[in-house]
């Protein structure tokens, strides 16, 4: 699992949750919240979809790592690798 592949997984989940958002120009180093309308309900859904689709658990204390695409990749890539992906 590369970090870019990991970012794509997160983007796919966001596209599924928020089909009304334009994801073509998302900057990886800027907070997702600052680039589109995502509230706490949507972040809960990102976490839930990671669990549902990929078997990845994100404890509440770690939600902060999901702030931007870059931080998502840093945090999630080792978790995917630990699952052998």
């Amino acid at each position, binding site marked *: 699992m590369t970090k870019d592949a990991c970012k794509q997984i997160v983007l796919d989940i966001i596209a599924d949750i928020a089909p009304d958002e334009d994801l073509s120009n998302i900057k990886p180093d800027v907070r997702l919240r600052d680039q*589109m309308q995502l509230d706490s309900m949507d972040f809960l859904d990102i976490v839930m979809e990671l669990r549902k689709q990929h078997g990845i658990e994100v404890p509440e204390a770690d939600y902060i790592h999901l702030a931007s695409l870059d931080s998502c990749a840093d945090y999630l890539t080792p978790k995917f690798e630990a699952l052998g992906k």
Partner: protein
Amino acid sequence: MNTSSHYDVAIIGAGMAGLAAGIRLAHFGKRVCIFERHNVVGGLNSFYSISGRKYDVGLHAMTNWVPPGVKGSPLGKLLRQLRIDRDEFALHPQKRSRIAFGPGGETSLVFTNDFTVFESEVARVFPSQIDGFRRLVALVKTYDDVSLDAKPESAREIVRRHISDTLLEDMLFCPVMYYGSATEHDMEFGQFVIMFKALYLEGFARPLDGVRVILRVLLEKYRHAGGERRMKCGVRRVIVGAGRAERLLLDDGTEVTATHVISTIGAAETQLLYGNEPASGAPGSGGSHPVGRLSYCETITVLDRPPSALGWGEDTIVFFNDSPRFAYEQSRGPVDPRSGVICLPNNFSFPEGQDLPEGLFRCTCLANHAHWTTLPGEDAYQAEKTRWYDDIQRSALRFMPGGLAQRDALRAATVATDMFTPRTITKFTGHLGGAIYGSPVKIRDGRTPLTNLYLAGTDQGFLGIIGAMLSGISMANFHVLAAK
């Protein structure tokens, strides 16, 4: 334990809140079952047929309509959370609505799905009040109305800080109260804000085929996500053990167990399921949680022509009141015809060439539940319906173009009529007191004395049809999906 009858979550009631909660939970892999006593889904927003003719009950219009692309709205939240594509609801915006006050509707404010229309109407009719009105709107826009722990404040008091003319005050409150308030005379400010946004800042829309479309979409999502439902099988009793809802006794006499239970049937109605007294359904027997005092009658008149043929082609909804003050309170007589709501479901902006198969004219007034449920026998009930059908129509006609002079034309165009009363509401929804909007006391966090039983829907306190669905979503998220 018989594992085949154990659910992660059992939901009581297949109304908007129950279905929305069910979709969320099933989507995330919970084993969910919805138990519904009636044979039709929808609860307070449902449908029926008589002689091959389809009727909607409840829904006049979907509130909270915003144009595609507007972010952060309740409608947008709902669509995202339930993974519904906006086009699936196929919503068509209203033409315009009106608040008409005075014995013949002498003072009138028009509003549409474009808020600037309403603002300019207030400026035109109440020039001295417009600055205060704008301050009130600014406050409404910034108020955190979805907070689960806001402290209750009187909406009348807050509105009066900005609006000094009681006529305008009453006109603002009339639609907001009729479309969701369980409280007489006043509202909690947070609830006022929810409804003010839903009606005035956002707006009305409807699918061509009405509430059936919404329910069909919800059912499809729920089924697709793997949710189960049991129709004509309500929960008769919640059996308590160790402070929890330990088992559910169903109408068919069998029992199921569930890790979590979400009840959407109302606070007092739920209390009766686990309290000591058996659920008698009699008003006032709701244990310690107060039963709502506000109930309604609605007349439905089917016409052989569209309302536009009677000169009624402009108004989608008309909120009326004939008295010096608007009294939103339990009706003292069988029906209180002084104020009410008229709905013309044909008058939405449907695509060219599409309209409902027949004309519809619906009128709603406050009514007294005790009166309608204690009439001596079926003949007396039917006679009372006939009498009040006429009185409600006559009252409403005063506020329509042409006024009472339209009576004969309306009668000539009428091909079928129906009417629901407080008795009908209790019979089909189980709401004590015929209280469509439930108890005046809302439980925002949904908690009950039982640790695994939560409330959603009407008595959790997000008002309106969108509010009901968001309530189901919020409670499923808060108590089950995000629970530690």
